């Protein structure tokens, strides 16, 4: 029972990631692509958690934390590049 549910969840996450990839390729504007990348990160985290439940191991929990950190930093970097055109500022501008 739980195995079937986890498999269905994994397939749904895979479909979501595929749809987000289509949005990244087609996406009319740059913020669409950034949001789609962030969505792919969240779905990757969720699917790794599901795989970790299926395999009954705790070895993947660090992977989840690292993916969360890297997805957070990547989204911030992309948004700042779109908003200001510069990612790391040399001196305080305000």
């Amino acid at each position: 029972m739980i195995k079937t549910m986890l498999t269905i969840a994994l397939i749904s996450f895979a479909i979501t990631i595929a749809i987000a990839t289509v949005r990244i390729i087609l996406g009319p504007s740059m913020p669409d692509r950034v949001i789609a990348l962030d969505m792919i990160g969240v779905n990757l985290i969720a699917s790794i958690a599901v795989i970790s439940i299926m395999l009954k191991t705790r070895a993947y929990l660090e992977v989840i934390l690292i993916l969360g950190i890297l997805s957070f930093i990547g989204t911030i970097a992309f948004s700042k590049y779109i908003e200001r055109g510069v990612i790391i500022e040399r001196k305080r501008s305000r």
Partner: protein
Amino acid sequence: MKINDVILRTVTKIVVFIILTFGVELFFSGHNDPGGGFIGGLVLSSAFVLLYLVFDIETVHRGVPFDFKKIAAFGAFLAVFTGIGGVLFGEPFLTQAFGLFDLPILGPTELASVLLFEAGVAFTVVGVVVTIILSISKDV
């Protein structure tokens, strides 16, 4: 144009410490679990990259007044130096030792001299990654 980023700065001031703590935990989880010097150093340097992203270079350098090139050099020196430590006892280069010790609070703990080597690797990774990020972000 004034950009309001109060939420980002407030979140970063808390999240940086979580990332640093997780990096140290990865560093100490050693060779029995996923972790070690390289990955711990990468996570620590991602915390520094987040600081540089949210604040600017001058502000961060006022709070963290280290020259990261010197940190990388010190890490490489430390890693090679632990290798020489094995030579002093008549063993091959980079021989590592470990043992079980009874510590006052922690109880029986396994201490390995590979920890010093891993510390050198972590220092090197942090220094090199932050130096690369700062170099490629220079104004064109």
